[in-house]
């Protein structure tokens, strides 16, 4: 019987192929069954999403929080060089771990304002070149070391001296402490001051200086101290709600932290609150979104996060799960372009070499994206609305710059090239002349997950449609953890990327500044936070307005100027503004409703990140 079935099936399939071959129609105009457009009721979430105001707030009915339970959180990536802030390539998943074991000096308020958290008060000098913070008294790290001004200064200095994070803090000229007080001095007036050291920034999180002194990679240690330093940089000692228990690197492995009974916001702490509620929290790396989603459905995870809109869409209306969506302060998805070329007088000034060559060995000279014409051609060829509809399930919006709707600097029209095949082809002709290539050959580096790979296929197809034989695109999938390394070292032409999440543009300056653009030189590898390594004098001027001018109107105008410069010079190929989804079991409560000790509501989700101290599970049991 089975044999007959197999026979029949084989014969049927063979003939279906023959029929298909004979019936195949290469005439694209003869396509039938145009997809139907279905009108749907617009919900509040959809409206917020459209305006860029989806905050991810957990608005479920208030219930009394109870202690207990073990929460398993499926996160999207492991971390390179975990976890000390000065050395770690710390993306969203890493920041979630930092939030569990420590707190930041500041935190983002619900209105987008930065509010003190470990800091009690902050006072700027009259010229805004010096800011003095008073640190809350009575807070201790997990090893008993007190959190005082000296501890904060030590943390900041490790970040200042680090080759990774140092450039982002290069404007700090000095950090001094006295008791619970810390004073940060800046080279220029700082409009935002140390408030940039909030929970969106890895260097905003505080760790025990006693423990940091045992870590061999600590840039403040002498060679002798390094030789005897035996601490483990993954065994974080912070001031947070949970204390480190274990960490096993790699996909499928986890970071586990247990309840800190002496948390400064707990019953034994200085505020006398009851945080945290959970007994234990475990972050399990599950890179593949399908694996993560199935893990949630199968009970392996109690909560997951994702920026895959296609997956988020699947949970809409599913009452078996809680879905919180956030695009407020979100990131921008893009294809990042490596524009390293020419000289960089800005970074050169810091090194005493005003003619600092950005590509001394010509490693990036064959990258067509160093030419504006090629960047414009590529931008004109991408139908970002289609990308939003087909790859973002229609619930994300096409991006035109680094600032999403609702954030400072957002513009309806940034001047970024619009989808226009004719313009693309015109620019391509110039690109061929500028690059000296025909066909123009470009390498695209992407993550290895199937969704990113398929999205890249669509992008390549759009370029093929626009340029035909004039372009040759080579797509290289790379393991997720290695992507950041390649971006930092500048070893790419074009890279699938997601970045620029933040509340205030002044938090983002180091991604775009020529001061943080290091040369591409494999013989002397240097890390650059300006991954695109572009040098844009107008951008430097505009960013000064954002960073150094306390006048809100000037800052806003400057941020808009930054946005226009991105549009004009096409430093990145924007695709969509990121929508984050937090998906959990209904037993997990208060996922994003976190307040400061003073009762100020914090921003529920900032670029996928949220607090975990306040999370509790029904009946003190997350699994049910």
């Amino acid at each position, binding site marked *: 019987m089975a044999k007959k079935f197999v026979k029949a099936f084989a014969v049927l399939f063979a003939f279906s192929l023959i029929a298909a071959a004979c019936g195949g129609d290469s005439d694209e105009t003869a396509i039938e069954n145009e997809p139907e457009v279905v009108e749907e009721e617009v919900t509040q979430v959809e409206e917020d999403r459209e305006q860029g105001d989806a905050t991810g707030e957990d608005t479920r009915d208030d219930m009394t929080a109870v202690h207990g339970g073990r929460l398993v959180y499926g996160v999207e990536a492991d971390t390179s060089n975990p976890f000390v802030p000065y050395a770690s390539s710390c993306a969203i998943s890493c920041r979630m771990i930092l939030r569990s074991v420590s707190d930041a000096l500041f935190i983002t308020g619900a209105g987008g304002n930065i509010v003190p958290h470990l800091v009690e008060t902050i006072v700027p000098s009259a010229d805004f070149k010096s800011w003095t913070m008073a640190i809350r008294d009575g807070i201790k790290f997990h090893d008993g070391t007190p959190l005082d001004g000296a501890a904060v200064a030590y943390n900041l200095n490790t970040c200042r001296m680090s080759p990774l994070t140092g450039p982002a803090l290069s404007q700090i000229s000095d950090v001094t402490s006295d008791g619970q007080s810390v004073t940060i001095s800046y080279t220029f007036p700082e409009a935002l001051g140390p408030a940039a050291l909030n929970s969106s920034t890895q260097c905003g999180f505080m760790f025990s200086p006693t423990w940091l002194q045992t870590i061999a990679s600590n840039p403040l240690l002498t060679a002798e101290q390094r030789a005897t330093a035996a601490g483990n940089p993954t065994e974080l000692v912070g001031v947070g709600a949970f204390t480190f228990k274990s960490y096993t690197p790699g996909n499928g492995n986890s970071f586990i932290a247990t309840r800190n009974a002496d948390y400064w916001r707990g019953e034994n702490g200085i505020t006398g609150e009851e945080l945290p509620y959970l007994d234990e929290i475990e972050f399990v790396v599950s890179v593949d979104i399908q694996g993560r989603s199935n893990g949630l459905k199968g009970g392996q995870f109690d909560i997951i996060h994702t920026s*895959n809109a296609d997956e988020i869409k699947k949970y809409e209306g599913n009452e078996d799960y809680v879905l919180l969506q956030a695009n407020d302060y979100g990131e921008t998805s893009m294809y990042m372009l490596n524009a390293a070329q020419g000289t960089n007088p800005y970074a050169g000034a810091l090194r005493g070499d005003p003619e600092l060559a950005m590509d001394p060995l010509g490693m990036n000279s064959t990258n067509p994206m160093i030419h504006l014409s090629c960047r414009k051609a590529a931008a004109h060829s991408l139908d970002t609305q289609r990308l939003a509809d087909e790859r973002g399930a229609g619930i994300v919006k096409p991006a035109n710059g680094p600032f999403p709707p609702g954030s400072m600097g957002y513009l309806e029209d940034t001047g970024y090239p619009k989808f226009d095949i004719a313009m693309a082809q015109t620019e391509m002709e110039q690109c061929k002349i500028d690059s000296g290539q025909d066909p123009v050959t470009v390498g695209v580096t992407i993550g290895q997950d199937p969704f990113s790979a398929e999205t890249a296929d669509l992008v390549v197809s759009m370029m093929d449609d626009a340029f035909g034989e004039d372009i040759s695109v080579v797509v290289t*999938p790379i393991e997720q953890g290695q992507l950041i390394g390649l971006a930092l070292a500048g070893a790419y032409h074009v890279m699938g990327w997601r970045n620029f999440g933040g509340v205030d543009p002044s938090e983002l300056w180091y991604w775009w500044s020529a001061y943080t653009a290091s040369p591409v030189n494999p013989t002397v590898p240097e890390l650059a936070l300006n991954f695109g390594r572009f040098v844009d004098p107008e951008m430097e001027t505009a960013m000064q307005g954002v960073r150094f001018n306390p006048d809100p109107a000037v800052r806003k105008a400057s941020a808009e100027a930054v946005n226009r410069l991105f549009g004009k010079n096409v430093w990145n190929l924007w695709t969509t503004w990121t929508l984050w989804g937090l998906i959990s079991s209904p037993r997990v409560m208060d996922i994003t409703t976190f307040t400061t000790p003073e009762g100020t509501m914090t921003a529920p989700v900032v670029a996928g990140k949220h607090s975990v101290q306040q999370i509790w599970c029904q009946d003190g049991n997350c699994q049910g």
Partner: protein
Amino acid sequence: MIKLKLRKRTREVDETSRTNNSLGLMFWAAVSFLAVLTFCAIFADILPFKNPTQTFKGFNKNGPSGSFLLGNDGVGRDILSRVVYGAQTSLVIAVVGTSIALIIGGSIGLAAGYYRGKVDRLLTIMLNTTLIIPPLILFISLILFLDPAAERRMFILIFTFALLSIAPIGRVVRANTMAWSEREFVLAAQTIGARNGRVMFREILPNVAPSLISYSLIVMATLIIVEGAVAFLGLSVPSPTPTWGDMINKGRPHLDVAPHITLMPALSMFLTVLSLNFIGDKLQEKFESKAAIL
């Protein structure tokens, strides 16, 4: 009495022979499927298939329709044409990889089985060495070591697949050679002074060949599966060249809403492997029974 017994035995042999001459509907269905697939793969460029890399706006994840007989994938590409063009990759890798392994492995097995002694021991150690390491791990390591940037992936895949297929083929040929080299006609050829080369290639090889062919079909089927596995891990021929494994991998995110994206290439791979295995088994049966009669 004696005559009757002889007649009965002759009739049994005739029936066995007749049964084996008839290969059955399933065999021919498998041959037809492979023939159609191979024909479509070879002549894909001139047959009326859509461009396998072209994405059709608004058709992503659509099911089978009049315009797209097997439906569209996650970015709107025609699954039928991708299945057909994907067959090119699978078949080229399987056929070329197996052919190379057949020539090298066959020669080694023939020499080891015929000469025996020290030659056999040395060659057998060589063959067995490649079997120590788990094949998939060795495949992946070789691919990543030899071609980290995926610049000549097709060549590297064929090379690694051939390299790791040599040992199984060599062992089969060696065992068959050992069996055939003890037959009377081989001894007769050696007795009349035929050179070793002539004995091996004129007397033994033609008898080893049938089982070698049927086994090589099974090796081809295995290579198709391994290529699929490697593609699933993102290590096969890079995009936009379609491969079945890559199609299955990229269909995973849409399994719950558009299972046909994964199902169609998976079915193609399943039926191809099934066909190759079935043809190989049938030929093996046929050749074995012929040998038994002989």
